[in-house]
């Protein structure tokens, strides 16, 4: 029993915060400890304006808030998904100023005033984006968890390709407009992992929109 109470005493407010929302972790704490934790969590917030899908949002955020968490937890835009939370899976991909990024590996406070597009912002006038239609037509998903990231990534990838960006499989780097072959599409989409392995259909959907001969 002595050991247990000692270990309770050694738990810091920070440790409590890091335990997240797991209710079981709160059992046994005095109310004043919980209140202190709440104060700490609300301290040192920063004002940030996020321009998401054409709408301006004023937020007061703990600077630790990732762009992904700001979108999901503060703006209820749950299209961007949290897969690995370390930039390895691509499920959180959004467009920042038209360029694809991992929203889990950046802070919301770094993007004050910059235009952000999520999967929710791709449809225009109730018409799905051509890539959304193509993913449906080609059955480019199974469970769907990676899909919003795949589609946002593909939108960014097609823009990069139109701008003439090369990839590591581009044979002649000096060529200003490398053709978007299937090998190019696969290389350029390698930052988006699909656990269901729907890759052949994802590639087919992208090829259709890119105009690559099937």
């Amino acid at each position, binding site marked *: 029993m002595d050991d247990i109470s000692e270990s309770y005493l050694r738990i810091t407010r920070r440790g409590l915060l890091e335990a997240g929302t797991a209710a079981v972790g709160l059992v046994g704490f005095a109310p004043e400890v919980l209140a202190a934790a709440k104060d700490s969590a609300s301290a040192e917030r920063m004002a940030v304006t996020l321009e998401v899908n054409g709408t301006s949002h004023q937020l007061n955020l703990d600077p*630790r808030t990732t762009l992904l968490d700001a979108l999901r937890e503060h703006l209820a835009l749950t299209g961007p998904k949290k897969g690995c939370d370390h930039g390895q899976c691509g499920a959180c991909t959004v467009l920042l100023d038209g360029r694809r990024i991992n929203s889990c*590996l*950046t802070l919301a406070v770094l993007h004050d005033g910059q235009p952000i597009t999520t999967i929710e912002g791709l449809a225009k006038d109730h018409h799905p984006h051509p890539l959304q239609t193509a993913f449906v037509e080609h059955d480019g998903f199974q469970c769907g968890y990676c899909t919003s990231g795949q589609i946002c990534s593909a939108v960014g990838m097609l823009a990069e390709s139109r701008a003439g960006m*090369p990839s*590591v499989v581009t044979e002649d780097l*000096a060529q200003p407009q490398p053709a978007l072959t299937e090998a190019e599409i696969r290389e350029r989409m390698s*930052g988006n992992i699909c656990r269901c392995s729907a890759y052949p259909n994802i590639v087919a959907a992208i090829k259709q929109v890119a105009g690559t001969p099937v």
Partner: protein
Amino acid sequence: MREFSFARAASPAQAASLAASSSTRFIAGGTNLLDLMKLQVETPTRLVDINRLPLDRIEDTPDGGLRIGALVRNSDLAADSRVRQHYGVLSRALLSGASAQLRNKATTAGNLLQRTRCVYFYDITMPCNKRTPGSGCAALQGINRMHAIVGASDQCIAVHPSDMAVAMRVLDATVEAMDATGRNRAIPIAEFHRLPGQTPQIESTLKQGEIITAVVLPPPPPGVQVYRKVRDRASYAFALVSVGAVVDVADGRIRSARFAFGGIAPKPWRVPQAEALLHGVAPTNASFDAAGQAALAGARGYGGNDFKIALARRTLHAVLTQATRT
């Protein structure tokens, strides 16, 4: 992630002055730093946002080289028409690293300063002299398939993970850094990264309170430029071994050859004595093998990475063959 205060820098010198404390980190792309902060490998008490500094341009230098701003994103650098035409080894090295999303964020200076991906450095429950000096090195007796075969010490066998830095090394780039007084310092890339020795936590010769402002490339060297990366997956994986090379052949003889390895050392690994063996000789299997033997002289494995010694020689051989094919 631990709490930190957040500041925005208005000028490079001001950024440098804000970074006088060792618990301050600059944040640019953040793709490596935030990854490490989430795991509490990095626990800065202050972040200084440098993204608004005017360090995002690629400019021609008077002598025919390029001055690459510290904040130029990896994707923009790889796609720049001057880089594609005259510094192909750099473009290809950049494009072989990470994913498109990460390259859109990652910066030139951040890429140089990225930390090792040693799994024991990343795991705060394990000993690691780089993360916690004096705690030991779990990789020496652990799973060390990705680890160094040259340049390591008994304190640390982690490798530098950058592809870009390998190309910068073979191109003889210079890193420019500014301190809080606004004074600039030029650091040759060969002297920028440090070997671990007894202090693996010190990874570069950049001083506390200095900020990288640019990386300068000399005029493009003559010859064919090649970058080849050997890895576990076809894309989006760190190198087991990579080789960047620039080889100039005329009249059946190698006029000049330079090459650097990635994935095998704590810094981009270049061996001038091995390059010298190729000067003036015919591009043959025998001369390539001699260069490979010299380049990997003194290499040692730690069990899981023994294969890298032969792999590095063979990758060099393949790169030299490709670069000298007429």
